């Protein structure tokens, strides 16, 4: 047998290199406070953002444009989901959390334990859209009570046909599609429709990927589903929106279809929802974060409509800017 010296050398070298690498790495390196203060456009440092995949497109767009404003600030964005992001946020591991719902009590409690204070800023609206297949001729509008009848936990295994919701609707099976239970979208929908967050029937097709839901509803005549307005907007040919009647004439009479107008003026209730960013107060003391958040609010309207969301009214944005200014200047004292 002949042994090969060259490859043997490779093996030895690999062992050596990785050995040193492994141990030197164990020394640990703490990336902390990597911000330095310089004025104006010469800002440096890094901003760590994580959280909701629903808010991600807006924040990604803002981060992309912010590079022109402050090229030396490294803004990174993750997609751990609203809950996953908050887990990091309340430990002070990230500067900003993208969130498709408000912070939960237990999350807020953990933040307090860890001495983390923060500010919530709504940055855009989304209209959760209830959709059916275009071949579905009957369900043009539904009341919140009817939706509740379909989605509440008690409906599981019982409400299985369209004519159980309204007798004049066909005696056909109803196939349900909705957001996965880990998403902020699910929490919001159940809160608004069932009345209790994170509680619904379990026998429906759940997916965290909204394109799967689009696919499901667009190929099934008896389907009913819900997801963010952007997905409806991009697939209008394949889907039909259901008008929602909350039986409260104070915010618009009768059943109302989601649109930029009805979401903005609040008549598309109760399924219009605000999307938020949460800012850690320690981060908000850093000039690059202040600049980034201001830039975010200044551009949120344009950029959010570009990615399919519905911008906040101008006066509302102004209010948020003021809120942030007070928050940030309060930190300096």
């Amino acid at each position: 047998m002949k042994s090969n010296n060259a490859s043997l050398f490779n093996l030895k070298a690999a062992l050596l290199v990785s050995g040193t690498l492994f141990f030197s790495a164990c020394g640990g390196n703490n990336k902390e406070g990597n911000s330095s203060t310089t004025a104006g456009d010469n800002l440096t440092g890094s901003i760590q953002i994580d959280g909701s995949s629903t808010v991600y497109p807006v924040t990604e767009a803002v981060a992309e444009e912010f590079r022109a404003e402050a090229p030396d600030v490294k803004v990174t964005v993750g997609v751990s989901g609203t809950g996953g992001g908050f887990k990091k946020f309340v430990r002070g591991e990230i500067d900003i959390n993208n969130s498709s719902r408000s912070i939960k009590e237990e999350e807020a409690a953990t933040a307090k334990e860890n001495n983390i204070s923060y500010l919530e800023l709504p940055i855009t609206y989304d209209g959760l859209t209830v959709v059916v297949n275009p071949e579905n001729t009957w369900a043009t509008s539904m009341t919140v009570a009817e939706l509740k009848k379909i989605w509440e936990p008690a409906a599981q295994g019982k409400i299985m046909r369209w004519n159980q919701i309204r007798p004049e609707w066909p005696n056909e099976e109803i196939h349900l599609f909705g957001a996965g239970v880990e998403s902020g979208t699910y929490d919001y929908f159940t809160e608004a429709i069932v009345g209790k967050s994170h509680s619904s029937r379990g026998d429906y097709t759940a997916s965290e990927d909204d394109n799967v839901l689009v696919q499901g509803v667009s190929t099934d005549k008896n389907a009913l589903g819900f997801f963010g307005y952007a997905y409806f907007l991009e697939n209008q040919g394949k889907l039909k929106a259901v008008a929602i009647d909350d039986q409260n004439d104070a915010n618009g009479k009768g059943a109302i279809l989601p649109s930029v107008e009805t979401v903005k003026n609040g008549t598309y209730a109760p399924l219009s929802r605000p999307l938020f960013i949460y800012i850690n107060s320690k981060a908000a003391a850093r000039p690059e974060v202040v600049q980034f958040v201001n830039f975010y609010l200044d551009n949120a309207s344009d950029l959010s409509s570009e990615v399919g969301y519905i911008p906040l009214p101008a006066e509302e944005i102004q209010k948020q800017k003021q809120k942030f200014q007070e928050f940030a200047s309060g930190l300096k004292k």
Partner: protein
Amino acid sequence: MTNTTRNRIKDKAFQFFGVFCLLVGLVFLGALLVDIVTRGMGRIDWDFLTSLPSRRASRSGILTAWAGTLWILVLTSLIAFPLGIAAGVYLEEYTKKTKLSSFLEINIANLAGVPSIIYGLLGLEVFVRQMGLGASLLSGALTLSLLILPIVIVTTREALKAVPQTVRQGSFALGATKWQTTWRQVLPASFGGILTGVILALSRAVGEAAPLIVVGALAYVPFVPSSPNDEFTVLPIQIFNWTSRPQAEFLVNAAAAIIMLLFITFLLNGIAVYLRNRQQKKIKW
């Protein structure tokens, strides 16, 4: 019908069955490849490879994603292979067959079946938090190393088993120590088999997204990592992100990124196959 003809028919039948089994796999793979290539090939150009992610699908690129994937692959190889191969050598060449060693053996095989997200959670707690490495390339690579270690160990052992005992005995007879025998005879002789394991392990690591997301790999990273301590993203995360976007143009981007991911995998496997063949030619017993 005589016995001979009956056996011949059986023989032919099995041959057809074998071809059929092979085709089942190949047809699906072929369909997927054709689908991906027709969707994504036109999107791949120099700009796509050298641009940062963007909200506009047409301006978006995979620079940081493929750079991150390469970093992760190199680091994972450097960490996992020496550890895995050394562990395999120890288990195969040094331990005696005791209850403990067979217990270890079963558990290593079991580890290969643990869902990858579990490794992600382990990596998050141990590497990111306890060891303070943060959401860095190094944390990601260490996590993936844990994930592929069982595969490396098991295949290393199989490769070592395939080396004839007579080789070891011959070496001992000439007065070589166990270490000399293992290092100069057994390891070089099993190099080809070990590399096969390495190929399988790397191919698994390159497609993982879930454990890396848990460890803290990001979706939007506007810079190419320059050290193992940097934050990062990888191609599977970029692909996942794009497939879940509402705009159809992002799906084309995802297809193009999948082609690049396949290309990187093929390239790495190609290198490993080349090394293996070169090595095998030099072994003559």
